[in-house]
């Protein structure tokens, strides 16, 4: 277990390093200037501003300085477009994104898994067919169509729900539902597949043969193994939630990290871009690790093979 953990943590560090390197050099290659404004700034002032941000140093030095500052000072640099430390921007917007993401994940699991189980148990019936058609629709209708439609047909008609905004408890409902829908659809398909595979195995037939009630067969014998593909998907699902949040935050005006990231790309704000990319990367590495640990918990075979490696 310990070896598995250290192996995965090292791999995570490698991912972050690769992400940093790619983002750093792409950001350097971006066309345009971070300090463009309507005012005409003299070349001297510009040079001074560049110096202030450390942009005058050779590229290799900048490449080393940034991670060094993160590790030694906990500093992600200063946003060139906002003039504030990147860490401030992250710590201010991350709680909103986290709440949105967790609620969306709860929606996704709460809707997706039961639908998947239901359609696996009633395989090839009209229920199965309807569930999978709905799941396919969920995958194919983008959140930027569903979001606005929910705004106009749901939020505008139910008192207490606002079309957009953030701050009250009920404001979380529609954005997280919109965000969770796609993951719910994928989870439903994966759960159905996983359960069907387990249902075809010998020990399930044995359980039926010895007179275990059908519902108990599903809950006690099938669910644990059948949920494995869905659990393995949690890491990628989290990545999908982050990507999806860029859009949902725009539609529902949630003050989260996604908007900052999009702004950073358009305003050539390289420190904000780097800081947010690394932060997203870190979250995903952690989520993947958690998903792997959870898989090991559910499936002893995974633990075993890891040990003998």
């Amino acid at each position, binding site marked *: 277990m310990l070896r598995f953990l250290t192996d995965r943590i090292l791999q*995570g560090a490698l991912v972050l390093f690769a992400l940093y390197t790619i*983002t750093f050099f792409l950001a350097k290659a971006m066309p*345009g200037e971070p300090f463009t404004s309507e005012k005409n700034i003299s070349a001297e002032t510009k040079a001074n501003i560049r110096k202030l941000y450390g942009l005058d140093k050779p590229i290799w030095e900048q490449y080393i300085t940034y991670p060094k500052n993160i590790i030694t000072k906990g500093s992600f640099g200063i946003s060139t477009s906002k003039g504030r430390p990147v860490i401030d921007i992250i710590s201010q917007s991350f709680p909103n994104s986290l709440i949105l993401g967790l609620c969306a994940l709860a929606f996704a699991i709460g809707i997706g898994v039961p639908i998947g189980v239901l359609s696996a148990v009633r395989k090839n019936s009209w229920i199965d067919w309807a569930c999978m058609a709905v799941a396919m629709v969920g995958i194919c209708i983008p959140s930027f169509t569903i979001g606005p439609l929910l705004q106009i047909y749901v939020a505008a008609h139910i008192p207490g729900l606002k079309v957009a905004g953030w701050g009250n408890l009920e404001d979380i409902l529609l954005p997280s539902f919109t965000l969770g829908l796609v993951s719910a659809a994928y989870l439903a398909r994966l759960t159905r597949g996983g359960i069907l595979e387990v249902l075809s195995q010998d020990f399930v037939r044995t359980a039926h043969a010895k007179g275990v009630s059908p519902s108990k067969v599903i809950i006690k014998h099938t669910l644990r193994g059948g949920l494995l593909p869905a659990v393995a998907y949690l890491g990628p699902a989290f990545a999908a939630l982050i990507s999806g949040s860029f*859009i949902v935050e725009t539609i529902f005006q949630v003050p989260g990290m996604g908007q900052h990231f999009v702004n950073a790309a358009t305003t050539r704000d390289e420190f904000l871009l780097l800081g947010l990319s690394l932060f997203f990367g870190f979250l995903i*590495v952690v989520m993947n690790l958690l998903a792997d640990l959870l898989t090991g918990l559910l499936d002893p075979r995974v633990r075993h093979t890891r040990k003998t490696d």
Partner: protein
Amino acid sequence: MKMTDPSKKTPQGSSLWKDARARMAKNRFAMGGLWVIVVMFSLCFIFAWFCTDPNQVNLTNKFAPSSAEHWFGTDALGRDLFARILYGGQVSILVGLIATAVSVAIGIVYGAISGYAGGKTDAIMMRIVDTLLAIPFLVLVIVLQATLSDWSGDVTQWIVGNFKWDKEFTGRLTNVVPLFFALGLLGWLTLSRIVRAQVMSIKEREFVEAAVALGYSKGRILFRHIIPNVLGPTVVYSTLTVPGFIMYEAILSFLGLGVESPNSSWGVLIKEGANFLETEVQLLLLPGLFFSLTLFSLNFLGDGLRDALDVKAAKD
């Protein structure tokens, strides 16, 4: 490519494709998807040329209801919505196809080299893929797209200068070109794994052994004997990535990072439609419908093709 002559194919190989076609024809969802896509393609790429100009602004006739002249009515600037949906479809579908082509090209070469080399090279190359796969795709696409954005103007100029293409058509492509590459350059990862797995099984086959015995170079064996044999299945698998790329185009355009007005793509149209939601729902619904229908069909078609070719899955 001449080396893939039919005499190389064993009878068993041809019957695989025949079986696949028969299985495909039985799959009603996949066939339905195929027909929808055929209709959609003909609408966007043939019928669109006979439509009115999608950028024809007419401020006296904005938000017109549907009529014989404007089938889907007009938008906020009085432009014909039907024409804009079809022209937008061209861009969206092209992004899906070209990004797929780029990623297939990279994925095949990378995966084939990795699978054929084996050993340490393979381990390192696959480790790189694993690492890149763990990085959030949209994050990288947004950064790469921003990096490439300036360069697209030059490419368009070059195309207009060298190919004498319709200026209007290339103009529509201006801010789409970086999308092709941003998506394609990053989308090959999963494909390279699929190719690698196929190459690993094919390199044990007798005809490769024969080529080795004949003393052909590794490069020749790889590119003329192995890659042509994995090409078919890989292209089929890659149909499943087309809807993904179309979706990413729409996401980026919706965020204002992809195609920009007055050019249209389905993402741009949905974004524009969302602004007039309260009074003119059809501006959001109709492009959304075309978009979702295409994605729906492409997914069913891709699933169907994969199932039809996957002999192992088809047996049980």
